[in-house]
């Protein structure tokens, strides 16, 4: 234990990978440019040198083939970690993820499990324009058979991978591109986390804000700002988008009577839509105001900075949504 150890989100992801590779000979990492290049975001830098080319495998630009190969390999008894550069490119492997990974256990009457981990970067905020800025977690969270998780803190970035590898079902890990430089303490290195539970990151008695990814940090910043006005916001980090831990959110709403959901994806059919519906179903009598939602504007994310900023979730927009449900 090293209480003063501060690392970045990127380094934490790498530590998680290193721990996974060191801990189980069956584990290997494959994806585009994960080896010699060191990962398109530098996450796997140095791992090829440390573990060799059989454990850190560069693949061709064939998302469908290497994701499907990961599924087949997982069925065949090894434990692949497949990296897709970004969620945008995962659409080229959508068939394998949705039609195979998510269905094989069911179609086979429980015979074929797929203990596969797929990591991918999600989110906008870096002026990368529409084809590199999607936040499509909600799409995947729609699909039974998949587990969808989103590490939003340094500790979760390091530990969630270990939990995902321990899971007998396919787990999609959404790493937010805007958080790679986030710093935080990691005193004990990667520690597995409970993938079934959301967690309260900041307690408060007036309004519940549920979020994940970059929107979580926008929400925490908004909570800080609102605290100066005497508004106490409780911020829930959803962590796992499927299965969605609505119990933690409902328990919070029972205390506060108000809910705002912030997400980096689009509003229509989003995580906020799902949470709002569940709170309406199960927490209606605890609501003291309509549920508020903060989401990306319904446009392909534009390149120009002022337009991108206007499209995305920000502390100001979260704070404004909180004030709206309080008024």
């Amino acid at each position, binding site marked *: 234990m090293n209480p003063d150890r501060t690392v970045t989100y990127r380094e934490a992801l790498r530590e998680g990978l290193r721990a996974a590779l060191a801990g189980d000979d069956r584990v290997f990492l494959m994806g585009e440019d994960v080896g010699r290049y060191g990962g398109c975001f530098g996450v796997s830098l140095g791992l090829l040198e440390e573990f060799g080319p059989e454990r850190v495998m560069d693949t061709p630009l064939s998302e469908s083939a290497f994701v499907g190969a990961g599924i087949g390999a997982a069925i065949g008894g090894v434990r*692949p970690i497949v990296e897709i550069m970004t969620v945008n490119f995962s659409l080229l492997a959508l*068939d394998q993820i949705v039609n195979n990974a998510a269905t094989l256990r*069911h179609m086979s*009457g*429980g015979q074929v499990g797929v203990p596969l981990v797929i990591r991918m970067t999600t989110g906008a905020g870096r002026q990368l324009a529409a084809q590199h800025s999607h936040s499509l977690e909600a799409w995947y969270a729609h699909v039974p058979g998949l587990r969808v998780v989103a590490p939003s803190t340094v500790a979760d970035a390091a530990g969630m991978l270990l939990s995902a590898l321990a899971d007998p079902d396919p787990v999609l890990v959404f790493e937010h591109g805007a958080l790679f430089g986030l710093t935080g303490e990691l005193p004990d290195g990667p520690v597995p986390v409970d993938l079934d539970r959301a967690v309260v990151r900041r307690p408060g008695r007036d309004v519940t804000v549920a979020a994940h990814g970059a929107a979580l940090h926008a929400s925490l910043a908004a909570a800080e700002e609102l605290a100066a006005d005497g508004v106490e916001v409780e911020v829930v980090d959803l962590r796992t988008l499927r299965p969605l831990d609505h119990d933690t959110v409902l328990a919070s709403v029972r205390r506060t009577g108000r809910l705002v959901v912030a997400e980096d994806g689009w509003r229509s059919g989003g995580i906020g839509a799902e949470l709002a519906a569940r709170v309406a179903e199960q927490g209606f009598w605890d609501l003291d105001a309509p549920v508020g939602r903060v989401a990306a504007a319904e446009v392909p994310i534009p390149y120009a900075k002022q337009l991108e900023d206007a499209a995305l979730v920000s502390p100001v927009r979260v704070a404004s949504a909180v004030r709206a449900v309080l008024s």
Partner: protein
Amino acid sequence: MGADAPVDPALGLRLLRAMLRVRRFEERCAELYSSTAIRGFVHLYVGEEAVAVGVLDALGPDDAVVATYRDHGHALARGLSMRSVMAEMYGKVEGCSGGRGGSMHLFDVGHGFYGGNAIVGGGLPLAVGLALAQRRTGSGGITVCFFGEGAVAEGEFHESMNLAALWDLPVLFCCENNLYAMGTALERSESNVDLAVKAASYGMPAWAVDGMDAPAVHHATSRAVAAVRSGDGPVFLELHTYRFRAHSMYDPERYRDHEEVDRWRDRDPIETLAATLRGLGALDDAGWDALEAEVAAEVDDAVAHAEAGTVEPVEDLTRHVYAERNGTAL
């Protein structure tokens, strides 16, 4: 041994019996479908039996098989019991997929049978991954992947051929070229209809085989399996065959004429092999009748077993979506 080489009588009789089991099983399926005992999509393999039977007879128990949605023949030839396959057609608990898969998704991990895959081309990456695991674990097994010629137009085909060849993975690609992707003829969908040539461009051995001749298929597969098992990487077989019946149970067959079907029916793989065996003195009327009677009894038994099978209670609906932990689904 090629198509003209002498056929080993023991092998010939084994292949004949395997093909007849598939044929009679499927004919009964057609009847049951007409009477609505079976529903959903049911794709019959009638006419193509020599391919699955010839290929799978050449495999070992540690090998893995990935099939298509036209998978009854592969499942039976791989050794799944006729009872378990018929029960699956009925959607019963005793089915090889517990009734969750149906005709298009027959699974049996115990037989290394990783399912009928109903997305054209979707099984190829899976097979590459199974082969990757076989190599990493040193199991000594190989993976055989069946797909139709329609899959050759899919991106997943090309990605998978490339990856398997690039990584020298132990995959045997078996392209069942029955000339029609549903109703689209090969020459209407491919710029180059010589599929073995296309495959060879990925740097793997590839050749075409008469898929109506079960012993020839068996012979070619044995060679290919030996090459794949030796660690030299994947091999591609293009198996020329033809389905006698509709794409899915019944179709108007506007895309092909009856004369063409009749020409191929003249090359019925069962009748062809039976004639060969009669010529060799390995089969006579009594032998044939006994074979028919044995298969008919097995089909009757499978239907009776399926009809008496267990209907899964709807309370179990959400099982098998996630791994069961301490008896409860996630």
